[in-house]
């Protein structure tokens, strides 16, 4: 079993893992950060999205060993103390979540989406959100939240 090391939410972490371990399972089972979820087995639902080197990645599609030495951010690392990240705050403000299961991946994707498309309109947001499935909201409030989150992130 190889030992792998990476930075997760600014903390150095290290564990011995089976080579077939996916990054999402490393995060959930080895590091114990269960905010990142698994909703499918075909890399479609996006519940497992984290940031690796600042870019959104479906952590079910990456082996843990591929993330050796990487800088990984998960939903748990977004808020600064009690202060939510602007995107988290926007999701709350606009009721952009119901059951909360797709939410961590949705928020992580939304942040990367806004980073890549700072002035995205509704159609662009909907198109770019294609990799994240929500069964509760019909996306209406998620889209509103991302629009608001984008302006909050822009200052």
């Amino acid at each position, binding site marked *: 079993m190889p030992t792998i090391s990476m930075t997760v939410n600014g903390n150095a972490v290290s564990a011995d893992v*089976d080579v*077939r371990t996916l990054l999402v399972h490393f995060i*959930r089972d080895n590091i114990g*950060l*269960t*905010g*990142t*979820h*698994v*909703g*499918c*087995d*075909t890399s*479609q*639902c996006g*519940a497992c999205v984290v940031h690796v080197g600042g870019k959104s990645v479906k952590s079910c599609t990456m082996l843990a060993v591929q993330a050796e030495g990487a800088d990984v951010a*998960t*939903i*748990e690392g*977004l*808020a600064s103390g009690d202060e*939510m990240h602007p995107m*988290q705050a926007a*999701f*709350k*403000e606009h*009721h952009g*979540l*119901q*059951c*909360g*299961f*797709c*939410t*961590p991946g949705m*928020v992580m994707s939304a942040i990367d989406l806004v980073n890549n498309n700072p002035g995205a309109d*509704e*159609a662009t*947001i*909907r*198109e770019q*959100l*294609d990799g*994240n*499935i*929500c*069964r*509760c*909201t*019909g*996306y*209406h*409030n*998620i*889209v509103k939240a991302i629009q608001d989150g984008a302006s909050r992130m822009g200052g």
Partner: protein
Amino acid sequence: MSETGIGAAVKRTEDQRFLTGAGNFVDDINLRGQSYASFVRSPHAHAKIKGINTSAAAAMPGVLAVLTGEELVADGIGPLICGWNIAGKHGVEAHNSPPHHALAVGKVNYVGDHVAVVIADTKAEADDGAEAVEVDYEVLTAVVDTATAQDNTIQIHDEAPANLCYDWEIGDAEATDAAFADAAHVTTIEVINNRLIPNAVEPRACLAEFNKGTGDWTLYVTSQNPHLHRLVISAFNQVAPEHKLRVIAPDVGGGFGSKIFIYAEEVVCTWATRKIGRPIKWTAQRSESFLSDAHGRDHVSKAELALDADGKFLGLRVNTKANLGAYLSTFATAVPTYLYATLLAGNYTTPAIYCDVQGVFTNTAPVDALRGAGRPEATYLLERAVETAARELKIDPAELRRRNYIQPDAFPYQTPVVHQYDIGDYGASLDKACEMADVAGFDARRKESEANGKRRGLGYSSYIEACGIAPSAAVGALGGGVGLYESADIRFNATGNVTVMTGTHSQGQSHQTTFAQVVSEQLGVPMENIEVVEGDTDKGPFGMGTYGSRSLVVGGSAIVKAADKIVAKGKIIAAHSLEAAEEDIEFADGIFTVKNTNKSLTIGEVAFTAYVPHNYPEGLEPGLHEQAFYDPVNFSFPAGVHICEVEVDPATGETDIVRYTAVDDFGTIINPMIVEGQIHGGIGQGVGQAMLEAAKYDENGQLVTGSYMDYTMPRADDLPSFDVGTTSTPSPLNPLGAKGCGEAGAIAAPPAVINAITDACGVAHIEMPATPEKVWQACQAAE
């Protein structure tokens, strides 16, 4: 209205944990010494099991046990049950009910059926072990098709000749025939209500533990109704006595009906944990969810609507074949009967209705309640028939509906199919929807589309649903095996804050916020001092759970009743403390006041007195802790009108929903932000059914839509934003005046969408889902 009381759009208290990764779903829970289960599933739709060789699997690294149906039956574990008896035509007293063992015995009946379970130290070792189990199958011909299952020479179960579960009827056949004899016009439609897969984004999961020291079991499970899970696993599966089994449903990541049911995996893990002496976790892979979560819908129907010369509905005659799958899931039998045909009056005064339903077995996954459960099927059938009649008679579809609406002064209104509607104003919803949707401007928009080579269509859906499920006596009389009351427990702590417990369980419906608002309004306690607790059989009183848009109507009413008891007791305590007569004590906004004086006590002070009863009414019990059970006197009847406007590109068949308007009457609304969210989500699922989703089996019973690569889930770019409005006729039959809102969107949307698309294409019908290919074909055919 206070800032947090009834009617306030309070931000959700749930959000903090979900937005920061601190939610607590079943798969997030790990117990010391935990092992993992992996199920061996049938690759065949229909086969005899000639033998199972477990020896190779048992020898695999990390494998702790390999168990089959033989061991399960030997240990006296009872089969999975269906809790609703359906009496049939011609005096048949009970439906045909083949046994459904949690692990197959001798035969498998659908792809995904449970053959064996492998338990191992790690998930990967359990999966490897499952791969190594050798099963010798004799493959049989599969029965797949809903419409022809009865005629198939292959019989799936010995207990079900002609693959029939029941042949059931409702309504007055003679009166309906007579109505048709008098009709000036008869509209006939044949429609399929496409089979769906629920796809809550959190896969089903369970984690079972047996404590040798106490002899207690704990089952963590993705459940909409933990008390019902405990009851069934105890009373019927006989895994553990009810008082020794604690069922905990922590945060549940969506359910939509699919997490009501008591599934094989949950029973097997609870049974096996004692056998192997270690906790066992099972979490479905998505492909397992596709195969083995109870599916929804799957009706094939013919409907005839009789009208007089003025377009008044005289009679409705319906035949439906309903696919129940390979076995009966927990409430399967009730869905195509009492949750379906009893809604066929819709919003209309149709005086004579007759419907018969053949529930059939096929070699497919069990079919049960899915968001709306029977009511989407009824609404789709009825609103397609009404739309078709309007086109045939060249009457404006809104006008035809208006002509046949039950009028506001006609309530309570007895329909010919069981239900007595309590209240409504359907015309008001139609008027408001037409205004919001700018129906008046539609013709101009249509011309503009046509000028651009596109086609534009408008579709109405006028719906009613029976929610607030349900009065226990009525349920019992119709064959239901349970009562459908709800419970609430309000416990003041000595420091004045409050714990509220109910038997319902949120899977995204925001009970933590909504119920706290109700209690805040009733008792004048700030929301931040109210904790709502659900989902643990060791904490709250016995309750029936969350489905059928019942939580606020039934559970919220129980909370109001318990709050009333708190106030009544508080008055006795306040009267004593304030040296006044009990009848002179008034309660408002959290303060007990002696009438016409400035002498008062806050409810917090009263609570303190109740727990430190030094100066206290003689004979009164200490404490401020009350419980109530509420059994509704009737269903509630949310209703509304949805209008969908589409633009179709005839060159590609691509359909764009350019405008979607929903006007719903949910009676009293506690939190409009949350209610709008429920509507959005329901419409999203309804549009999914109408345009994208279909569970398809091939002729051998293989599920060909078994992943998100094949089953088209609605994604953000498939849906528009929605215009949502409300009207309100509060229900006179429950203390809140609430009606329930969770399912309305999924019920209303499919006919609105299909009526719009067929209007655009100029064809009579397109089967759901209206994919670009079908729409393109329709456009070609219309030319």
